[in-house]
């Protein structure tokens, strides 16, 4: 399960110590996620920076997360589970990306 930043983490769910946690930025530009594929560790945060003038979303294919990315704004998700998470933009479904999360 992935928890939205700013959202509530379930009580009793402890993320690894943040000392080594990183924020990985994915640029959203000209209707594409750049880079389309990123590798991260549990506890890392993916931050999407939408440089387009239209709103996008980063929506996990398995619905694990659904982050709104308003035009010119950022949105993020903190990774709490290992696995490969394909995602897309609900408004422009040909925009696709993948997050590979390792322990």
């Amino acid at each position, binding site marked *: 399960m992935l928890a939205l930043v700013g959202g509530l983490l379930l009580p009793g769910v402890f993320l690894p110590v943040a000392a080594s946690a990183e924020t990985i930025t994915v640029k959203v530009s000209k209707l594409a996620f750049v880079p389309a594929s990123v590798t991260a560790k549990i506890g890392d945060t993916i931050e999407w920076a939408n440089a387009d003038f239209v*709103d996008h979303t980063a929506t996990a294919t398995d619905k694990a997360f659904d982050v709104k990315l308003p035009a010119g704004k950022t949105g993020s998700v903190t990774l709490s589970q290992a696995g490969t998470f394909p995602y897309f933009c*609900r*408004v*422009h479904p*040909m925009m696709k990306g993948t997050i590979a999360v390792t322990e």
Partner: protein
Amino acid sequence: MKSLNRLGIALAGLMLTTGLGVAAETAKLTDPQIAHIAYTADNVDIEAAKLALKTSKTKAVQDFAENMIRDHEAVNKQALALVAKLKVTPEDNPTSQALTKQAAATQAHLATLKGAAFDKAYVDNEVAYHHAVNGALETTLIPATQSAELKDLLTTGLKIFKGHEEHARMVAGKLK
């Protein structure tokens, strides 16, 4: 009803391509004309989406229509800012007129429908309309555009509208 609807879609595609074909043959489209066509095409889709918001009770259709209004208004805002910057005055032309005329016919037809019949006709038309506009942008409008900035905006617009076409196909698939 189904065959009528198909006919409408076929006509929409035909008129759009024919209109563009005629315009392209008789005189090369100018940037002011291309800007007018793009703006008109955006507004056609916004008006259809407004009708969908009023008529449809289906969440997937309403969400799609809201996305169409937001995106096409965003594109138009960019387009208006750009033409102002470039000191280009959009110029009415036969292609814009054909688009407007066809859109009025489509709106009138959609306005007679309700429920599942409306949802299907609206979404099918969205697929066909975006497909026709995207084809026109790709093969006629973008290659004819002189201004690099306008070309860039239309190219981004094309990517946005290809997204809409795919989204519309997904919604159409859900309605079946």
